[in-house]
C-alpha cells in the first residue's frame, strides 16, 4: 500500500445555524483554508471527493451546486458520496492507492438548520415498518442508552462524565459550538430530556463544513514537516434494525478497528464520532482503548456535530495533533445510521 497522509485540515466554526450564508458560501472558507495552509490551489489537486446529503439541504442533487466552491474548471476528477466525509476520504485514499495521482481534496458540509434534524433523520429508517412511526434520532439513541444501562456495562454517572469532560475540553477548541465547565455531578441533577438521556448527553445541531487534503509519499513530505500518515483504514456496517443488533456493543467498529490495525501500537489520542455520551463508552470498548488514550480532546461530536462532516472532522483533529507533535499515533472514528449502524476507523501516525 502507498503511504498516504493528511497534510492539511480546515473547518468552519460549528454554529447552530448559519442563515446568512448558503451552502457553498459556508463551505468555501474551509476549502480555501485547507489549500492555503499548504500553499496549493485546485490545480495541484488530483482528485476531489465530497460527502453530503440531499435530505438536509431539502433539494435533490444538492451537492452539484456546492461543487462550484472548488472551481472545477478545467474539468476535474471528482466523485461524491451520500455519506459522511470520512467515507469520501476513504474513496480518495483508495483512488490515491492506484498510483496515478498524488493529491486529493476531501470536503464535507451540512446545514441542518433549514429542517428539523431529528425528524429528517427518521427518513433513514425502514420505510415500511419503522419510518411511519417517526422515531426521532434522539429517542433511538435513548433506547440504546437504556439497553447499555440495563446491561450493567455503564452508569448514568459514566455518561455524565463523558458529557462533562467533552464540553470542558471544548473550551480549548475555537471551532466548538458547545463549551462549558460543569462537573458531572452537576449534570446528574438535571432532569431528563428523553430518558435516560439528559440534554447534556446529546449533541448540538450544527451547521458546518470541513476540508482535508491528502497527499502521497514524497509529495506529503515536501508539503509539511510531519505528515499524519494513514496506517490503516476500514469500515463496516450492521443491519439498521435495532432489534437485530446488540446495541450495547459496536461489532462493526470492532471489526473495522481490527482490520485498520488499532491494536498495533500505543494510541495517544482518539477522536470518536459519538454524538451521544453513552456511545463513546461503547466505542472505547469496541476499539479496545485504555485510560492511556486521550479521548476527544476537541470535545468531539458532543461539542459540535455538523452532519456528514463530524466524522471527517474527527480524522482532521487527530491529524492536527500528530502534525503538531502532541501525539505520535491516533485513532479517528466516524459513524453513520441510527445507533452506530455503520462505522469507519482510521489509524494515523507521525514519523518516528
Amino acid at each position: 500500500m502507498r503511504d498516504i497522509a493528511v497534510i492539511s485540515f480546515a473547518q468552519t466554526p460549528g454554529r447552530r445555524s448559519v442563515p446568512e450564508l448558503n451552502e457553498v458560501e459556508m463551505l468555501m472558507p474551509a476549502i480555501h483554508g485547507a489549500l492555503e495552509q499548504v500553499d496549493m490551489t485546485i490545480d495541484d489537486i488530483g482528485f476531489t471527493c465530497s460527502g453530503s446529503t440531499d435530505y438536509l439541504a431539502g433539494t435533490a442533487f444538492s451537492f452539484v451546486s456546492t461543487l462550484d466552491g472548488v472551481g472545477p474548471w478545467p474539468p476535474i476528477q471528482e466523485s461524491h458520496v451520500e455519506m459522511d466525509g470520512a467515507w469520501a476520504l476513504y474513496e480518495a485514499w483508495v483512488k490515491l492507492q492506484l498510483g496515478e495521482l498524488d493529491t486529493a481534496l476531501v470536503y464535507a458540509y451540512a446545514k441542518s438548520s433549514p429542517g428539523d434534524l431529528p425528524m429528517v433523520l427518521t427518513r433513514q429508517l425502514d420505510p415500511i415498518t419503522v419510518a411511519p412511526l417517526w422515531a426521532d434520532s434522539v429517542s433511538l439513541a435513548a433506547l440504546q442508552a437504556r439497553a447499555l444501562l440495563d446491561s450493567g456495562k455503564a452508569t448514568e454517572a459514566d455518561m455524565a462524565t463523558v458529557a462533562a469532560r467533552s464540553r470542558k475540553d471544548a473550551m480549548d477548541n475555537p471551532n466548538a459550538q458547545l463549551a462549558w465547565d460543569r462537573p458531572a455531578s452537576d449534570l446528574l441533577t438535571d432532569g431528563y430530556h428523553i430518558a435516560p438521556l439528559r440534554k447534556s448527553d446529546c449533541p448540538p445541531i450544527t451547521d458546518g463544513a470541513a476540508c482535508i487534503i491528502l497527499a502521497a509519499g514524497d509529495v506529503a513530505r515536501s508539503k509539511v514537516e510531519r505528515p499524519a500518515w494513514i496506517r490503516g483504514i476500514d469500515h463496516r456496517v450492521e443491519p439498521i434494525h435495532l432489534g437485530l443488533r446488540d446495541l450495547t456493543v459496536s461489532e462493526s467498529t470492532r471489526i473495522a478497528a481490527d482490520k485498520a490495525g488499532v491494536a498495533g501500537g500505543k494510541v495517544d489520542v482518539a477522536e470518536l464520532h459519538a454524538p451521544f455520551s453513552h456511545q463513546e463508552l461503547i466505542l472505547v470498548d469496541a476499539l479496545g482503548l485504555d485510560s492511556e488514550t486521550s479521548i476527544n480532546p476537541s470535545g468531539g461530536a458532543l461539542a459540535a456535530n455538523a452532519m456528514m462532516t463530524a466524522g471527517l472532522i474527527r480524522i482532521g483533529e487527530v491529524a492536527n495533533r500528530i502534525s503538531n507533535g502532541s501525539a505520535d499515533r491516533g485513532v479517528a472514528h466516524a459513524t453513520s445510521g441510527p445507533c452506530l449502524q455503520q462505522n469507519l476507523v482510521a489509524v494515523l501516525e507521525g514519523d518516528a
Partner: protein
Amino acid sequence: MPEIQLPPSLQGVEPVRSVRTPARLDYTFTPGEATSRFLKGITQKKIIGQRATPDSRVYVPPRGADPELGAATPIEVEVAQVGTVTSFCVVNLQFYGSGMEIPYTSALVLLDGADLSIMHLIQEIPADQVRVGMRVEAVWRDDADIEPTLESIKWFRPTGEPDDVNVRIPGEIRGTGLGSWPGGVAPTELTVRNPRTGLGGTAEFGGEG
C-alpha cells in the same frame, strides 16, 4: 427464492402489497449572501450580477461562487435589462408546480454585461418566431407586485432591434474555444484557458496559446 412458510393463523389472509406513508418535511431556506444581494437588487428593479475579481466573469443570477475560480463573488455589477437569446425551447408539457400556460417559450438570455445566460420566459411573440440572436428586454411586474424573486420579471419580450447574429454563445468554438475532437485529436485540459493561472487555450480557439 426460499418459500416463506406462514403460520396457520395467517394462512389465507390477504398479503399487504404496498403501503402508502405520506411524509412531510418543512424546510426554511435562506438565500445566502450572494442571492440576497441579487434579490435586493430585484426589489429595486435592478439586475445585479456578481464577479470574483475585476476581470473575472459576471454571473447572473449569482449563487455564491465563481465556478471557474472557486471563489466568492463580492464585486457587484449591474447588468442591462436587455439581452440576446442564445437558445430556447417551446414547452408543451404542464408539470407539477408550474403555473405556466402551455405552450410557452423558455429561453436562455445573455444579458448585456453578463457572461452567462439566464433562463427565463419569452412572451409577446409567437413561439415559432423566436430565434437565436433575437434581442429581448425584461418586462417587470407592476411596482406594487415586485418581490425579492426572479419572478418579479414576468418575462422577456422582443425589443425590435436587429438580431445580434454574432452573439457570444457561452462555450461555443467561435467564442471561447471549446470543441471536442477537431481533426480527431483528443482535447486536453490545455484546450481551455485556466482562469486561475491565465494559461492554456489554443490560438486557434481564441486563447492565449
